């Protein structure tokens, strides 16, 4: 059901781990829904993401999107990182099954949450960044009524 890219990132997740004294940490999702992502960012004075790590509790797609999202923001500026959308993550993974699209949203949201944390800690404003939602599980694609 998963593309080869997804399977590769699931089997060999990039940037898995923690960063001590991270510039920003964001945790999104909830265990009730079966996935939680945490992103650690190490951002230097020039606003460049020097390092990024993730931890994820969730399905194969959740792990793979976390991994891919970290790859996509690594070395980027904060503003560039803001442009890493869930679509970009999905495309980079050669697509996701429809029921798993929410994982890519979660990855986008996790990056944003970590950036928010960084912004708050440093009292700066990041263009276009909103306070992260606590739960992004809404509006899943639904089959038509069943009975």
């Amino acid at each position, binding site marked *: 059901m998963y593309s080869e890219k997804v399977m590769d990132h*699931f*089997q060999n*997740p990039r940037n*898995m781990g*923690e960063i001590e004294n991270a510039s920003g940490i964001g*945790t999104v999702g909830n*265990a*009730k*829904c*079966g*996935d*939680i*992502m*945490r992103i650690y960012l190490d951002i230097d004075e020039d606003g460049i993401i020097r390092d990024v790590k993730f*931890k*994820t*509790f*969730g*399905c*194969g797609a*959740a*792990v793979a999107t976390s991994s891919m999202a970290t790859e996509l923001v690594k070395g980027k500026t904060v503003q560039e990182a803001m442009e890493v959308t869930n679509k970009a993550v999905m495309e980079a993974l050669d697509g996701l099954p429809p*029921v798993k699209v*929410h994982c890519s949203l979660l990855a986008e949201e996790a990056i944003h949450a970590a950036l928010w944390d960084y912004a708050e800690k440093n009292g700066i404003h990041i263009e276009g960044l909103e306070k992260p939602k606590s739960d992004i*599980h809404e509006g*899943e694609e639904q089959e038509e009524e*069943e*009975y």
Partner: protein
Amino acid sequence: MEGFIYLDNAATTKTAPEVVEAMLPYFSEHYGNPSSIYSLGAESKKAVAEARETIAKSLGAANNEIYFTAGGSEADNWALKATAEAYASKGKHIITSRIEHHAVLHTCGYLEKNGYEVTYVDVDENGILKLDDLRKAIRPDTILISVMFANNELGSIQPVREIGQIAREHGILFHTDAVQAYGQLPIDVDEYRIDMLSASAHKLNGPKGIGFLYIRKGIKTRSFIHGGQQERGRRAGTENVPGIVGLGAACRRAFERMEQKTDRERKLRDYLIRRIEEEIPYCRLNGDRERRLPNNVNFSFRFVEGESLLIMLDMKGICASSGSACTSGSLDPSHVLLAIGLPHEIAHGSLRLTLGEETTKEELDITIAAIAEIVGKLREMSPLYEDFMKKNG
């Protein structure tokens, strides 16, 4: 597929080669329609009659109480909808359990939309029906109690004898979804006072797409599939002769070797449970330790999510499942795990391993090592584990 380890026998089983062998002549040689008058049809008819007899005997039932269906889901739908229709004038209340298969639960949902009331009786923390709650749920307009013989996720065996007794005392019909139990446990419909029973061939090394509904003689029923006069006018459609023959052969086979097979599986099951409990921390056995299908093992591993675990096991050639095979693709954890009171995050980390007649101890040893390794790896990756260790480690 070479060298894989199949531990998902509750989802479906390998059709035994002898069963396929028994079916083969009915495809291209004795292919006659059993309803036809000529000798070619008579051979199919005889084969169907023999399969029916084998099944009837296995349950202590009469031949004309067995109706072939396309599987367990059709049998469940038929039992519930037809009974609801036939007894609507007596009442419109049905009792079932919270841990039924979706074939029963969604049919109940359908009936609720059509003017019936359904009470879903709770189970205890081991997934066993609360008999007191069942008794309390009974009303004067209750027409049917439908409780499964054994649960597909937890393997928990329900107190069928007591349920049958309670139903009989109150003059209420009793249907049991025995899709998981039939062929694994001895069942006598009279002893257990079962009025209707569903089963499916592919759970007992028979083919997919064939099953049956037992309906006790004298019970008012209705057709579910209308049309030709097959199955005594009760279930229309040209008989799936090879399928029926396969079901009969699988049934004969299962009942011949039941004791020996289940003894063996029970031992392997207990070995698997013991070693997982000893070797993997933060795990929980789901389901009753004693009143449990001989082939079922179900664990929750904290801080770990089921799908990831399954995919990693698959990469090592191990086939297992997380909750019911039917619900994969859904995001909610299984209703069964929630019904026994597991918190969502723990329910999400459940793993079901169901043994089969070909399962070996060596396979289990490989599986245990694989689970230990994967659970370790996934916990390393888990923010929940990180938080937990920071707090308690």
